[in-house]
């Protein structure tokens, strides 16, 4: 769990950097997105590894949860978990479940149209069918919907909670030394707040820009 979690955190950072480039430079965003979408190494080596990492993390999460529930067959009549452990650490299965639900939506919303464009329509194998400048306009178009932005922001709040505990927990599972604990805790918790907040900012930024573009000036 720790290793797959750390791998997914690295992926999240890479995803954030590419998405954030859409705010700074639409041209760079288009270039990077096209590279990620059509590079053979990324598509046929890194992407399967990523899918394996995601599936492994979620399956192991559910397997461990089932094992843990079996280890206490009779529940306590009174259990004051909030007195000795924060909510986020006790509810990783729920925050992770929301993130999984979001990933399924993301898959339907983004991945299936991409797969359709690349492999059904054939742009992966016919360069003339691919448009290297389509990504920025597609991104802005996606965030025109307020509902999509709200779902996106809510999902990232849960992702923040999941990483807030999970990132530092991964280092503890890998044997974090006491002398590194404070700095690692600071780094992981800052990461858990800043990166999801950044994703929310990107969604809100493009939503507001699209509204500004659509609504004509008086």
């Amino acid at each position, binding site marked *: 769990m720790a290793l797959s979690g750390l791998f997914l955190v690295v992926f999240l950072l890479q995803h954030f950097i590419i998405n954030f480039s859409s705010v700074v430079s639409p041209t760079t965003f288009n270039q990077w997105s096209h590279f990620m979408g059509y590079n053979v190494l990324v598509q046929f080596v890194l992407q399967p590894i990523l899918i394996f990492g995601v599936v492994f993390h979620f399956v192991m999460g559910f397997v*461990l949860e089932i*094992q*843990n529930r*079996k*280890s*206490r*067959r*009779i*529940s*306590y*009549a*009174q*259990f*004051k*978990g909030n*007195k*000795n*452990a*924060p909510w986020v*650490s*006790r509810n*990783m299965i729920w925050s992770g479940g929301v993130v999984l639900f979001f990933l399924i939506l993301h898959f339907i919303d983004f991945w299936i149209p991409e797969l359709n464009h690349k492999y059904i329509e054939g742009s992966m194998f016919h360069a003339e069918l691919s448009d290297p400048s389509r990504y920025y306009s597609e991104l802005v178009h996606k965030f025109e919907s307020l509902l999509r932005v709200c779902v996106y922001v809510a999902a990232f709040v849960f992702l923040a909670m999941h990483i807030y*505990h999970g990132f*530092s*927990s991964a280092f*503890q*599972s*890998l*044997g*974090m*030394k*006491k002398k590194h*604990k404070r700095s690692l805790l600071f780094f992981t918790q800052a990461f858990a707040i800043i990166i999801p907040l950044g994703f929310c900012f990107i969604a809100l930024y493009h939503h507001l820009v699209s509204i500004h573009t659509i609504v004509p000036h008086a």
Partner: protein
Amino acid sequence: MKIKLKIWRQEDSKSKGRFVRYALDSITPEMSFLEMLDVLNEQLISSGDIPVAFDHDCREGICGTCSLFINGRAHGPDRLVTTCQLHMRRFNDGDTIVIEPFRSKAFPVIKDLVVDRSSFDRIQQSGGYISINTSGNTQDANAIAIPKADADRSFEAATCIGCGACVAACKNASAMLFVSAKVSQYALLPQGKVEAKNRVKNMVAQMDLEGFGNCSNTGACEIECPKGISLENIARMNREYLFG
């Protein structure tokens, strides 16, 4: 003080348990929690009822025998105390106190509030020892110099009394804090290096075999441990396991 009690009663390991309510009106704030249960049992015996079974021995917080999950917390509401060190002044007149046994698949209830914690003994037997020469030419312990910091950390780990509060408090019923304390107390000393690799593997394997849950690093065990055993021990055990 008048106290109402809601206590888990279970005839034996195979019976189905249930909560039974009792009322006590002669409790003083100076009484320890176990003395309060003694008063209850005296009343039950004098009225011809079966007394409540609960574990206790030294009653001074060092043997690890007493247990009890009191009002939703292992060893009750105070930090760094065992149930025998908990006093009735911690409760208010008229309070209802819910008392349950430590719950874990690996700690089956024997009777009422008494649970079988022999799974901890089996984990210890699987690797919680060092090989020493007892043939008559035993080496003087002081012949091996040990840094003070290592000796202190080893001693801190060794203060674990094996009460099982870490398992009881963990939402996963994990025994990682107990096992890691036992691994650490040897891992930090040169005498423990000989069996280091096998020790951690055998003890973790036995822990899994006993049916304890997995550690998700919530930290509840550290907070509820009456001896303040640190999560640092779990990280050390993970290092021993991964890189040993």
